[in-house]
């Protein structure tokens, strides 16, 4: 699991995740993403999943946890690349019904 930082202008910070997202890899990502959110205090936090090859419920926990961190600095979260099996587990979780969180299929990467 790797994070690549995407386009960051003062108001947005983008994290492009890649590889397998499970309990083991999520543990390491949490601190890194939270650190960056608290440091740059953006208005929008973007999490891109287009290069995530497998994700279980730990990924849902990761999104919910980052939503909390984002909210603590007044930011909203945009999840992109929610296709295939990533889209499937996100739909099962009902995340798209939560306020302050947008889920889209298209990728942040270009």
């Amino acid at each position: 699991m790797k994070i690549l930082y995407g386009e960051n202008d003062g108001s947005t910070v983008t994290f492009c995740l890649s590889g397998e997202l499970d309990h083991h890899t999520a543990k390491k990502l949490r601190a890194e993403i939270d650190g960056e959110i608290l440091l740059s205090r953006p208005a929008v936090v973007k999490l891109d999943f287009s290069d995530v090859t497998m994700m279980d419920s730990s990924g849902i926990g990761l999104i919910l946890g980052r939503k909390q961190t984002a909210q603590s600095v007044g930011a909203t979260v945009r999840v992109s690349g929610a296709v295939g099996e990533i889209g499937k587990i996100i739909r099962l979780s009902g995340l798209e019904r939560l306020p302050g969180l947008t889920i889209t299929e298209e990728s942040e990467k270009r």
Partner: protein
Amino acid sequence: MKKAINELKLRLPAKSENEAVARALVCSFAATLDPTVGELADLRCAVSEAVTNVVVHAYRELKDSAAGRIYISVRLYDTREITVEITDTGCGIADVEKAREPFFTTGKEDERCGMGFLVMESYTDSLTVRSKPGRGTTVIMKKKLTP
């Protein structure tokens, strides 16, 4: 009568690194039945949930949860059925019915969201959970592949 045509048994320390190992081994074994990409992805995720539960919950009372073991047994049948049994000898679950309710979790502070059993149930054809407090838990998942 269905007949088992192949069998895999694994025993791994309950370390988080082994979550990826366990699901990869089970899936490469199941792949010999030529499942679809979607069927294999579902199986991989369901196995990941069961194994993660062992790592996260089963041995939480031990000083070092990696001292606990994950036991996995996979059987492939001539009917294109797969059964995966995942066992631990950990703390067990007092109220299995409650634990299986979607979004029930005892791990809120650890960013668990109570979706594991929901995923196992939705991504396979049947899920059985047997547990005894203080003795451990066995989760049995069955998946029938398309012909």
